[in-house]
């Protein structure tokens, strides 16, 4: 019977710390802790453990917040919806595609004329035609990548 009382006190103590207990149970527990030295000692031990747990300190790296703030700002700029530079880039890309599609027959005819005039092999003409379209696009990609690289110095810190 006595053991049951102490077991109940220990159970209520744990319950009070984890989820809370009703006022009447709390009163019973406090009364028991006043009367029982052993349970009072265990209660103080457990409460002391939680105090120590709450007091556990961790040293945050001094520049962690600053690095994170920089990275978040850069990401915010990079992914800003409807950013002006992004819109201009998309417009230019669209115009370039349209111009390319409509001017392709004329360019090909021009290459054909050069081939006929100077006797250039067909394979060389086709290769030149591909370069005509590919080189400006590759240059544009290079410029964009270069700009992104210089705008995100913090990326390498991860």
């Amino acid at each position, binding site marked *: 019977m006595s053991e049951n009382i102490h077991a109940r006190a220990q159970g209520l103590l744990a319950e009070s710390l*984890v989820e809370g207990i009703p006022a009447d149970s709390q009163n019973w527990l406090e009364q028991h802790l006043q009367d029982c030295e052993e349970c009072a000692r265990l209660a103080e031990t*457990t409460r002391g453990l939680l105090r120590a747990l709450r007091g556990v300190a961790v040293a945050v790296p001094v520049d962690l917040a600053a690095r994170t*703030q920089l990275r978040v700002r850069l990401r915010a700029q990079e992914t800003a919806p409807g950013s002006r530079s992004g819109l201009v880039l998309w417009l230019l890309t669209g115009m370039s595609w349209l111009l390319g599609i409509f001017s392709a027959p004329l360019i090909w005819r021009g290459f054909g004329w050069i081939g006929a005039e100077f006797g250039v092999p067909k394979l060389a003409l086709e290769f030149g035609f591909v370069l005509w379209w590919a080189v400006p696009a590759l240059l544009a990609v290079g410029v964009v990548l270069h700009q992104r690289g210089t705008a995100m110095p913090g990326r390498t810190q*991860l």
Partner: protein
Amino acid sequence: MTTHAQALGALSRPFCFTGAMTDDSKALAQGLRRRDPDVLDELITQYQTRLYRYLLFLTSDRALAEDLFQETWIRVLERGHQYDGKSKFDSWLFAIARHLVIDVSRRKKFSSIEDFANAETGQPYEPPDDRAASALEILVTRENEQAVQISLLKIAPYYREVLLLRFQEELGLEEIAGILSAPISTVKSRLYRGLTALKAVLPGGAA
């Protein structure tokens, strides 16, 4: 007062969430929806210790905790529109951080956060038996926080996690259940077992 200033003003005061949408949480939600960098700067400063501590104790790895700290705030930026201001911001933040830890553990081919720590020892985790309190009493009366810190890293992460959220972050059971996406009964069970496990691994706990 502009919404930007309201959001920053809200951050300068301690948050008091009651479950209902307060002016502060509303301003914060609006700031996150706008992806306001000043609001995020304030949040990063305000929560740096708590978030880093949570990640550090979950991963037991300083470099990984730093990476995940940064990734968590990137996620906050990208998913800020999902925060509705009805729940506590810290619960939402910790849930994001926890998901990132789980992602990392999955990349390491573990199926859950529990396996993350088991792989460190190569042994399946068994909760230790409750031990005699004599050595613990000596320790606690000295309030040896460093010993508690070391001991925390020795217990299973799913116990460590709930102990941190409950007793360091002082979150409620429902909030913890929300972060863990687990029933409250599971949270309670882990708290009781976690306390027992922590007592057992404290220096001299086996005495």
